[in-house]
């Protein structure tokens, strides 16, 4: 890299209506922190002629996380805002962990959660975590307001279901059911290289019944594999109705990998990637189940449960 940015027009609207008007008039792109957009402009992956900053737009800084009312994060809220929030850690652990593990850590102080989700980069962490938490994007646009579930939000690589001019006002996740736990984990290819992006990431949400000995609901998501993070319903079906134990988690992980397609034609790469996906999914589901069982401590890991099962 090292190339300079090409000149562009820049607007700083004060209201959502003004921002949409500018976007329509100048075919502008919205920018919040710019952590994804600025490097893309520099690499000439994008050649936007007009940027519209949402930094001064009023009403996009909602921030509310509570076990009874769910999670609501406005378009201007940066990822590091979630870190000190106790309910984010306890009740929306997958998203909290994804924000905590952002690399480099400085990004969390600059980039917004919604911006990260909207950039639709296939290997990003927050989309995987938010999909496991059943997130939905609340959108306002020239044709009115609408809600897009994250599952329908990602259309293709770098493409979302947003129409031109639409603004995501906030991300909303439903409050947890009782006895629910979630978890997020990722594997880095290596550390401290320019391609230092995670190889695979996974998130899971598990709900147990009242006695906490059967799984009644589950969401299993794998990211960085294909063009968007995906839910794997075969694995979820394998989990639901059964008692959480090590063998079940292994079987669910196998069910996911059975659906995956290889990304390369190199046998050894695929063997490694599939093995990593199996282990990552197994541990992620185990940790989510462990948290559901213990009503849960965000810093607890699944090690104890795995040891018991062995």
């Amino acid at each position, binding site marked *: 890299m*090292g190339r*300079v940015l090409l000149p562009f027009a820049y607007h700083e609207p004060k209201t959502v209506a003004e921002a949409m008007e500018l976007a329509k008039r100048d075919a502008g792109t919205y920018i919040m922190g710019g952590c994804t957009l600025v490097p893309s402009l520099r690499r000439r992956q994008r050649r936007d002629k007009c940027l519209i*900053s949402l930094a001064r737009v009023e009403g996009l800084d909602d921030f509310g996380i509570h076990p009874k009312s769910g999670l609501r994060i406005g378009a201007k809220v940066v990822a590091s805002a979630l870190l000190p929030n106790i309910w984010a850690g306890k009740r929306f652990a997958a998203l909290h962990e994804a924000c905590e593990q952002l*690399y480099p*850590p*400085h990004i969390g102080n600059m980039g917004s959660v919604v911006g990260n989700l909207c950039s639709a980069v296939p290997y990003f962490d927050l989309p995987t975590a938010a999909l496991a938490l059943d997130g939905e994007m609340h959108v306002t646009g020239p044709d009115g307001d609408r809600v897009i579930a994250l599952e329908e939000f990602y259309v293709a690589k770098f493409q979302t279901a947003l129409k031109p001019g639409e603004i995501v006002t906030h991300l909303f996740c439903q409050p947890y059911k009782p006895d629910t736990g979630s978890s997020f984990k990722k594997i880095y290819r290596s550390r401290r290289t320019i391609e230092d992006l995670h190889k695979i990431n996974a998130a899971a949400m598990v709900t147990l019944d009242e006695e906490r000995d059967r799984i009644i609901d589950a969401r299993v998501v794998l990211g960085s594999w294909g063009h968007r993070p995906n839910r794997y319903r075969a694995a979820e079906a394998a989990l639901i109705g059964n008692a959480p134990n090590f063998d079940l988690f292994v079987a669910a992980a196998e069910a996911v990998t059975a659906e995956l397609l290889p990304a390369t034609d190199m046998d050894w790469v695929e063997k490694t990637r599939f093995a990593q996906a199996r282990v990552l999914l197994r541990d992620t589901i185990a940790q989510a189940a462990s948290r559901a069982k213990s009503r849960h401590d965000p810093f607890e890991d699944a090690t104890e449960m795995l040891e018991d099962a062995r």
Partner: protein
Amino acid sequence: MKMLATFNVNGRDYDTVIEPHMTLADVLRDKLRLTGTKRACTAGNCGACTVLADEDPICSCITLAVLARDKRIETVEGLAAPGGALSPLQDAFVKNNAAQCGFCTAGMLMTAQAQLRDNPRPTREEVKQSISGNICRCTGYVKIVDAIMQAAEEIQAAEGA
């Protein structure tokens, strides 16, 4: 599309003419002549460009300057006292030989400064975690972590005295 902008850097207001496509690192180095902040990867990977915005570390190479106008910016030039006396953190870096080529040092110092403000008694693991976004290709990090730990102790001792 030139515009007049005011930046609050190290407690002082600077008026300058910028363009929207300039990054904060460009403005600090080329307009305000505060060349302590380094441009290296220009992609937010290496941390050499780290400055503090409202006391939080950010990568100035991928932050558009227009988005940083209403923030309080701190750069490495603001660490030393006005007379030139080094801050305890800078002093610890010198005493521990925590720099070889020194290119990453400005970013390391700013990240460490933010951490010591948030957490005056960090553990070694916490220090390693906080500087994990700052890459050093010379020292192997041990001396840098030593320096930050020593600075934390000295700041604590000075405050307790």
